[in-house]
């Protein structure tokens, strides 16, 4: 346990923690003294109040309830998008036929703000979980697909030819060269789609939901309990950061051979 703690301390430098602490301390002091009597201190409650509100939410299990709903929606949407998008993109990028048939279509749909489809999805799937999951899937799917597609397209031709000379069949070529060559692209697409999927989820929950973190933020804003609102904002920040860290961890593990940027 002790070496683990030491390693964590070294990785997340102590200075970083101190600066974060200083940031919240300044906020605390300014909010407590109502600096210059600005009206914004009515919204920016001191962090201690936010923390106590967070603890209250956690103890009363409201936090768990809302977080679980949000996590369920986002992880299902994200996983489905990744499970469909990665193989589809790889096949499309690798095969000449797929490239010609689907390439331009994916290029067309990738930069569109699919969030605009949400009202239509609500009409088709209802205000429940399905429409939110589907929105997250839709928004992520094209990003992930295009990542895998360009990954599959940009596999080193020299490597492929060498493998062919050494007698690799199509199956081995795909499993051993294409997937690994595309991996850095796939991971950068996954990182982007985590950020985008949280935007989609929060928006859809604010438009219409009865539970979830996005809904809680809007609910506590409407009921003027701004400390609780901030508590949920921090919860989103932590959960999204956690998802990102898990992904980065997987990336570091899988892509040891690749000098990847930790963006």
């Amino acid at each position, binding site marked *: 346990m002790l070496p683990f703690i030491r390693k964590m301390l070294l990785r997340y430098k102590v200075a970083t923690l101190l600066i974060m602490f200083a940031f919240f301390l300044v906020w605390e002091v300014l909010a407590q003294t109502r600096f210059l009597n600005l009206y914004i201190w009515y919204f920016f409650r001191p962090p201690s109040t936010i923390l106590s509100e967070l603890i209250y939410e956690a103890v009363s299990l409201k936090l768990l309830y809302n977080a679980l709903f949000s996590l369920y929606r986002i992880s299902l949407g994200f996983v489905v998008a990744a499970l469909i998008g990665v193989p589809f993109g790889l096949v499309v990028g690798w095969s000449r036929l797929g490239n010609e048939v689907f390439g331009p279509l994916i290029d067309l749909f990738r930069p569109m703000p*699919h969030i605009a489809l949400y009202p239509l999805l609500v009409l088709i799937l209802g205000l429940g979980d399905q429409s939110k999951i589907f929105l997250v899937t839709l928004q992520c799917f094209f990003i992930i697909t295009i990542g895998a597609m360009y990954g599959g397209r940009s596999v080193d031709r020299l490597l492929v030819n060498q493998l062919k000379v050494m007698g690799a069949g199509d199956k081995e070529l795909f499993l051993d060269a294409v997937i690994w060559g595309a991996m850095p692209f796939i991971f950068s697409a996954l990182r982007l789609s985590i950020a985008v999927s949280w935007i989609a989820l929060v928006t859809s929950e604010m438009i219409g939901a009865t539970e979830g973190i996005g809904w809680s933020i809007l609910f506590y804003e*409407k009921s003027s309990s701004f400390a609780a609102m901030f508590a949920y904002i921090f919860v989103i920040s932590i959960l999204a950061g956690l998802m990102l860290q898990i992904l980065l961890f997987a990336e570091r593990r899988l892509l040891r051979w690749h000098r990847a940027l930790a963006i």
Partner: protein
Amino acid sequence: MRAKSIYLHNVIRKLPSAAILIAFLGFWEWLAHVGFISQQLWSFLVPPSVIVARLFTLFIEGGMIFHISATLYRGLIGFLIGVSVGVVLGLMSGWFRALDEIVMPIFEFFRPLPALALFPLLLLLFGFGDLTKIVAVALQCFFATLIPTFYGVKSVDKLLVDSARILGARRRELFFDVILRAATPHICNGIRISIGVAMIVVTAAEMLIYIVGQYGLGSLISWTEVSRDYPTMLSSIVVVMLLGFFLVWIWLRVENRILFWVRETAAERV
């Protein structure tokens, strides 16, 4: 002659995709024709012919131009503010070690936070007008460019920097001629992502809060849904999506010019 044949090749390359798209739209139209979509059933899946007709009406007499320009105005101003602050701050915190250690931890903490989560708060601070939406877009674009720029500066080849030093580059030259150049692909990457994200955020923000009569494509989508004017709703969805596509398309052209020395074309980077 050569240019013409490349152009022709590009058109031919897109034919199968166009065929799929047209087949899908035709199927949709056929569903309406058969009666699967009617006043009583699935009435919101307005067939494409009706959408196109409504698009014409909206553009000619429906003030669609005002909706588009309102959305573009919010999106572009927010994008410009967010991107310029993000790039400058990213470059600076990559260059000055002190800034890197003091400012970046705070940004790293807030980086995964979607700007829309702050939207209720922004609403209280900046009201129902344009400013709220602009700030939301700016925030999201800021983080979308700050992080790639920062890591772009950090990942500049040490050999390059040392060589420039040995050749007698001063700090200023080192920054503008070596580091800025080397970080440009990353900055462009961040900007391209920001364009897509800006469209998402501006649409979402307009959909979340609107005053009836306020211009904006997102608001148009929301209040035509509420008032059950489905042809207008679907046409404005089509306009938003095409707008998002064209903005990125224009940027890709610009990016190809800026990054002419990068081997793969801009579109090949995710």
